[in-house]
């Protein structure tokens, strides 16, 4: 089930790719553990398939995308689905900020990969909080919502 009021988190669907796994682990952490009330996971695969519920979830709320490579499939699909990308993350860029967390592994990430996913999840959570604040202010009419 989707909730149109919650921010859509759309991670890379790259199966068999370390950076794809990092993106999904970060998305799970945000949507299931740290910000479950404010966010919802929208699988990229459903957007690709044209699933109506998934398309509605991104079309009617802001989205945070997490791309595993420069093809940026998550960001492109959200836009093609009529959604608004409030913030897009690239795992490679995040890794450059946390060089000590070298990700390895596919089905199971190594410790570095798990730490990188947590760091990414923290950054996403901060964006979610920021967007929530802007929305609240916007609802009160005191602050204009701006494109991220």
């Amino acid at each position: 089930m989707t909730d149109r009021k919650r921010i859509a988190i759309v991670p890379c669907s790259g199966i068999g790719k370390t950076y794809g796994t990092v993106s999904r682990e970060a998305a799970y952490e945000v949507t299931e553990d740290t910000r479950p009330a404010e966010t919802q996971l929208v699988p990229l695969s459903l957007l690709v398939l044209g699933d109506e519920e998934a398309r509605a979830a991104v079309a009617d709320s802001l989205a945070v995308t997490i791309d595993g490579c420069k093809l940026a499939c998550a960001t492109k699909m959200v836009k093609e689905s009529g959604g608004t990308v409030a913030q897009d993350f690239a795992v490679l860029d995040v890794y450059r900020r946390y060089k000590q967390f070298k990700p390895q592994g596919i089905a199971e990430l190594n410790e570095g990969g798990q730490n990188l996913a947590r760091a990414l999840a923290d950054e996403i959570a901060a964006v979610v909080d920021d967007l929530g604040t802007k929305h609240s202010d916007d609802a009160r009419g005191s602050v204009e919502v701006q494109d991220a």
Partner: protein
Amino acid sequence: MPEYLETTVDKFTFKVATDRFYTHEGVWVLPDADRVRVGLSDFLQQRSGDIAFAEVKPAGTEVAIGDEVAAIETIKVNVALGSPVNGTVIEVNPDMEIRPEAINQDPYGAGWLAVIEATDWETDRAQLLDPQAYFVVMKAEAEEEAKKL
């Protein structure tokens, strides 16, 4: 602007700049008197993947042919790049610290790695491939890689 030899293998297009020399491994060498600028060929950067980090030996480092002059970490692999000449590193591309993706974006230009002062460029040059020879080597490797896809 250099001219290029170009080939398309599967869905990938690879360029070889014709104004420089190459090692078999895909390190290009652009001479200017006894100083040579070095970097990664288009094929080597594409095969290696998106670059996360590039660490180049600092200025003042003496290198012999084959000694590691730079190490790159990509989303796929770690690659140690051997020096194509004997000499001393005299300049390092400062962009490698802050935007190593320049290697992916402009491998024959802004993505250069270092300048090495060669101790005997004429002798070292004899061990390098000219663009046409490297193009043949590169194309064969690219076609071999394509078979694995």
